[in-house]
Each structure stands twice: as C-alpha cells, then as structure tokens.
C-alpha cells in the first residue's frame, strides 16, 4: 500500500513537472456542485452517451455497412436461404452468432432511447428554472444543437440495419428531403447518391453515424461542459445562496463518488434493459424490400413527433406557377425548423420581452415565472400530442378504436389542449404563489417535490385554514413555520 502510494506520487509528480497538471487538478477537485437532485439529469444523459460509445465501438467490429446481396446462412432458422444485404446479415450475425453481441446491440439501442429521453428532461429542467438566461445563452444553444445531433444520430443508427422497418423510415426521410422547395431533388440525390434507394446510403449513414455525428456530439459536449465550468453551476435560492456564490459539495470525494455511482447505475439500467427487454428485433422484420411494408411502422420515440406531424397534417399541396410544395414539407421540414429555431431563440426572446439584461445564477422556481412555465407546458403538451399522433394505428388497435377517429381526435386535441394546459398551468402557478404568500414563505426557497399538492381538491380548504390560523395570531409567525 505504502509502496503503491509512493509510485503513484512519483508518476503524478513526473506528469506535473511536464504539464503543470496539479494546479488544474486541484481546481477540478474543488469544483462545487449544487446538491439538488435535478442537477443529475444531465449527467444521466452524459453517462448514457458513455454507454453508447462503449457499446457502439464494440458493434463496429462486427457490423458491415454494405448493400451487397448475400444469401443468409447464419443460425437464425426462419431467414436461412433468404437474400439480403450484407448490412442486414451482419446485424443478424451480431444478434445470433456473436457471443454477447445481442446484449451489446440492445444496450446500444436502449442507451440511445435513454440518452434522448434524459436530454429532453434535462432541457425541461433548464427551461423551467430559467437556467438558460444570461450568461448561459450560448450554452443553451450548444445544448439544443446536441439535441438535434442526437436525434439525427439516433435515426442514422437504426436506419443502418437495412431491415424492413429501417428501410421504410429511410424511404420517408428521402421523401421529406424531396419535398423541400427548389433544392429538394438535388438534396435528396446528393444525400442518397441517386434516386431512392440509392447504392450508397447505408455506407454514408454509417460514416455519419460512427464518425461525423459522434465527433460533433463529443466535441460540443466538451464545449458544453467547459462552459458549465466557466460559468459555474446555477443554484436554487435559499439560505446563504446568492447570485455571487455557489453552495454545494466539492467534487472530491463525495460528489465524485456519487457521480461515478450514477454512471454505474445508468450503465446497469442499460444492461438490464439490454438483456431483459427486447428492442428492435430485426430478425422478425425481415430484410428491406422496396415494395414491402408492415403495419405499425413507427420510428423511435424521439422521431415520433415528426411522424405524428406527417399523419395529422392535411393533404394540402401548394401550387405556385406550376411548381409544387408538397404537404410533407410543412409537417416534416417547416415544423421542425420552427421548433428548433424557437428553441435556439428562446433566451433572447425572453430577455427581450421581459427587458431582462442582467446575469442570473439563482434559478427560478417555475411558479414564479407563470408565463414562461405555462408556455413551456403548452409547448411540451403540443409535442407530446404529436408524439401520440405518431402512434394512431397502434392506439386504435390497442384500445379497439377507429384509427380515423383517433386521428381526428389528435387533430382537435393539438389545437385545443395546449392552450387549455397553458391556462391551467398559469392558474396552478398563481395558486402556488398565493400559497407561498399565505404561508409567509419567501419566494426563493430550495424547491422540493410537494406530493401533497397533488390533492388539488384540498387546495381551497387548506388555504382558508391557513388564513384563519394566520388571522388568529396576529403576530405573523409565518417566517418560523417556513422551514421545510
């Protein structure tokens, strides 16, 4: 033990003499992390990416992105003798003939779903607490870019396998590209190397999936985290927490151990899902054939909102002097562009409309920004409903409904429900603010989940009770009861 330590010390000293790393390392160890649990959501995304990279590298050793046709002779009986592309065959080989290949493949796919889900929840945390405000606008934009890249990389990933489902998805992606006015046909041809299916698309997607986008994601992630270090973390208000400090725990040792623990738990969740829950069983879908299609062809969840938009958008084709703008352009391109443009611009829009030009390091409680909170809730509802619209046929068969009725209901809901959610959220925020006032609580307080507030029907009575109590002792002991 002692000798070990001596060697470690000498190595560290050697490195330090050549890099000056000790000073930097000390700074890193001392970095303070606020200990609110919601700050860990982004870490779940980060650690999902670690799992993605680890399993992905393993998969590249076995995957062959070629569309050359071969006859399958592997160990999955029901496809023996079937003509298929090399890519699909190697996916089958990974699933059935590479030992531990299937668990790696499934972990990779589950980790992709978890990565995107964690990014979205992380984005929600940042949005609703106002963590995107000055000076963090730039980092917000980096984060939105990461979201977009992650979506594209997820799509590229599941399109590689050249099974029936992924081919159908690629066909739709091709058609959406084609629908872009003026440049669509050129873009589609350059992307696919010709008319669909094109000889090159799998190979190109492979390069995009394992090289271009991962490099971009990791590079931007470094920027993302570097900016977090530069800005230092935001924090919720509370005793001793100000705009001029960060209160929390230092990286070493407590936070580092917790964080490594979370890394391991995230990996464990992916391993459990990857081993126990079947995902994308491509052997049941069969090789991609141009003229085949299966019912219930859906994209992965993070693309489902686009698929839903394609479903609910009416069949409008715009004609301009003999030229045509097809409906999928609005649903597939314009909507996505507006969505992400709004996301990029939100910090600036909010700063402009609230005339807020100062730095913020203390987070908002969502209730104290009712307009932002209600708009965010409405937007989330809109995209959740679009995601739901992407599964109209499965909803219809699962619940014994008419797919037409479900679709029309989705159309109506998309228009009616988000404003209702906005109003409700606004009222809810106001209600919570009133409660705070009644309780004499100072607004910036360390937030915690108040499960008891789910009992909406008790609100009115409770508030009256509290007001009566307050009225009874005029001394106003609100401050002392405010401890959570």
């Amino acid at each position, binding site marked *: 033990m002692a000798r070990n330590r001596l060697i470690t010390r000498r190595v560290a000293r050697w490195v330090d003499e050549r890099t000056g790393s000790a000073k930097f390392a000390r700074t890193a160890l001392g970095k303070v992390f606020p200990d609110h649990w919601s700050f*860990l959501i982004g870490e*779940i995304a980060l650690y999902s990416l670690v799992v993605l990279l680890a399993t992905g590298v393993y998969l590249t050793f076995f995957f062959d992105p070629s569309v050359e046709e071969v006859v399958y002779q592997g160990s999955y009986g029901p496809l023996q003798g079937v003509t298929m592309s090399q890519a699909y065959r190697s996916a089958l080989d990974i699933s059935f003939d590479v030992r531990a290949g299937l668990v790696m493949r499934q972990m990779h796919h*589950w980790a992709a779903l978890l990565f995107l889900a964690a990014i979205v929840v992380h984005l929600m945390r940042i949005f609703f607490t106002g963590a995107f405000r000055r000076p963090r606008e730039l980092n917000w934009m980096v984060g939105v870019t990461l979201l977009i890249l992650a979506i594209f990389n997820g799509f590229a990933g599941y399109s590689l396998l050249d099974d029936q489902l992924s081919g159908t998805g690629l066909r739709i992606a091709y058609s959406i590209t084609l629908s872009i006015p003026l440049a669509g046909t050129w873009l589609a041809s350059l992307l696919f190397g010709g008319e669909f299916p094109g000889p090159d698309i799998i190979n190109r997607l492979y390069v995009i999936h394992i090289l271009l986008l991962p490099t971009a994601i990791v590079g931007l992630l470094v920027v993302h985290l570097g900016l977090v270090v530069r800005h230092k973390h935001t924090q919720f208000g509370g005793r001793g927490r100000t705009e001029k400090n960060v209160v929390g725990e230092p990286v070493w040792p407590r936070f580092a151990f*917790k964080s490594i623990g*979370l890394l391991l738990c995230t990996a464990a969740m992916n391993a459990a899902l990857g081993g126990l*829950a079947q995902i994308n069983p491509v052997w049941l879908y*069969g090789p991609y054939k141009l003229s085949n299609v299966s*019912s219930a062809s859906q994209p992965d*969840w993070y693309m489902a909102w686009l698929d839903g938009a394609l479903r609910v958008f009416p069949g409008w084709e715009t004609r301009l002097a003999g030229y045509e703008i097809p409906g999928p352009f609005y649903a597939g391109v314009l909507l996505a562009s507006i969505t992400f443009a709004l996301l990029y611009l939100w910090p600036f829009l909010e700063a402009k409309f609230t005339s807020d030009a100062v730095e913020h390091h203390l987070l908002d409680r969502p209730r104290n920004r009712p307009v932002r909170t209600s708009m965010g809730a409405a937007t989330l509802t809109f995209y959740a409903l679009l995601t739901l619209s992407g599964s109209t046929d499965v909803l219809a068969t699962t619940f014994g409904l008419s797919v037409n009725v479900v679709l029309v209901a989705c159309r109506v809901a998309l228009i009616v429900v988000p404003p209702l959610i906005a109003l409700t959220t606004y009222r809810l925020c106001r209600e919570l603010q009133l409660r705070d006032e009644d309780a004499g609580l100072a607004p*910036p307080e360390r937030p915690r989940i108040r499960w008891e507030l789910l009992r909406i029907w008790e609100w009115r009575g409770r508030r009256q009770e509290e007001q009566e109590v307050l009225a009874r002792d005029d001394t106003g002991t609100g401050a002392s009861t405010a401890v959570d």
Partner: protein
Amino acid sequence: MTVASEPTPTRASAPTRPRRRRRLLPLLGCVAGAAAVVVLAAPSDAAPHEGVATQSQPTDAELVAQGRTLYQTSCVSCHGDEGQGLDAPDGALRGPSLETTGEAGAFFQLSTGRMPLADPSRPPEAKEPAFSPSQIDALVAYVGSLGDGPALPDVDLASGDLSEGGELYRQSCQACHSATGAGGALSYGRAAPSLSTVTPLQIGAAMRAGPGQMPRFGTDIIDDQDLDSIARYVTYLEDPNDAGGLDLGRLGPIPEGMMAWVGGLGTLLFAAYFMGFRRANTPRVDPIPPGEEAEASTGDTNPATAATGGTTPPEPARDPTPEDPS
C-alpha cells in the same frame, strides 16, 4: 409464388385430404365420424384447380344434410334459406350471399367463432366457436355445396418452408397483420386481427376465402406449397424467437419508447432523487462565506432565515482563486 406460366402443383386432393379429416376425427361425433370415413374412402382425384372457381369435393350427403339442418336453425335468418343472402327491411345488407364463400370461408368464420353473429350490425369478432367441431364440419360441407366458393385447403406444416413462408408473409400479409403477426388497424374502425392464436387450417382457409376485408389469395398467386409455407411461418410467429428478452407486445418502437421513459429514465430519476435526498437527521449547515455576509443577506429576502443561518459554523470558502485565469 407461382403464376399461370408454371403449372400449379395439384397436391390438393388425394394425399392431403385424409390429413384434415384425421385432424378432425377425434372430435367428430360417432355418426359424423362414420360419414367422414366414407369421405376418406372415396376422395376425388380429379378436382380441377383453376382459380377460385373450384367446385368443392363431393361431400357426403349425410353431412350436407346435417349441415343443412343446422343452417336452417342458426344461419337462415341472415343468409336466407338457400344461402342467397338477405336484406334488412331498411335495405341494408343483413347477411351476404354464401355462394362464393365456399368451404374455406365457412370453416374460417365458424371455427374462429366469428359466425354466427349475435348482432348483424356489428363487425364479426373472434370468440369461442358456437358449434362443436362436428357441427362445423357439417355446416362447412353444406355451405360448400351452395356455390362455387373456394374449397377448404389442406395445410401441411411439415411440407412448408419456413424461410419461404417468411418471404411470402412479408410480401402479402404483414401490411395488415404486421411483421410480427400482432395485427393492425384498418380504416374506419376495422382491424386486422392478431395471428397469435390461429390454427394452420384457419390460416389456409382465410387466405383462400378472403373473409371480410381480407383479399382473396387464389392458387395462381399463392399455390398450395406457398400456403403451407405461410402457415408454417405464421405458426412460428405465434411463439417466435424472442432472443432479446421480454417481447413488449412486439408492437415496435412505441412500447420500446414507453419502456425507455418509464422503466429506464423513471428508475434513474428516482435513483438521482435518492442520491440528492438528505436524511432528515442530517444537520443543516447554512453557509455564509466570510467576508460576504453583507451580500449574502441581500441575496436573501427573508432576514429571519439569514439570522438562523448564522447559528451553525459556516464552512470556509473553499476556493479563493478558482480557475486558471488563462
């Protein structure tokens, strides 16, 4: 798949006919069983096999008569006394004509319990068959004698090719029944049923007869060999190789996404919540850095909390020169 350019193998009659009877034999009642043996003894070798216009085999008159009796009590109110179909008083179709239904259609409808219908205004649904197997056999024989509908095919899983069946299934069946046989939505509230509980003979009968909205697959498009292969693949899909674990309903990315959100991220968020959770007996330290008291209290709008904050010794500021200035 065979088209007319190739001769269709006619394996329909002699060797395979008894197989089906053997399948049903243990289920038949004594009288009907005896009748079936007669059929076995005299199968027709010369059954023409052109398109759908296949005349059913000569069936035992007794079986037909028995079927006719059953028909008169259970079917006649909708399909008419000679299977010609009936209109309701308001002009809507009450029951379609059975002339083109054939043995295949009758067997499918009766053995899956879709017929008889309790309420003709609602679409038929699979349920427990209302008739015993021997009664179904008799009714099938009777309906087969009504017109020139498709004969009940012979389905022999052993002679089917699983891979070939898969190819054909993906070509002709998965658009409605989904690649995994889970079924799917059709328009206006109809649905293609799940294939998880069908028997091979029902598969064959459905393909030949095209019940309801299902297209009819005649012998020129799907020959008997193909039919065996498809039946074999569909039978495989009833319990396919779920090498990956829980099948999640085999409905594709939707349940997978729900699993990722609820099972995966939900659990991890709870883990994070637990990690950040502070035990109730942990002493709460309210840090006020030395030299920053004044600012600290301005940051806090409530003087009471700032005052209580001073009761515990504050941790000294950790990092006076925080970052590399470069």
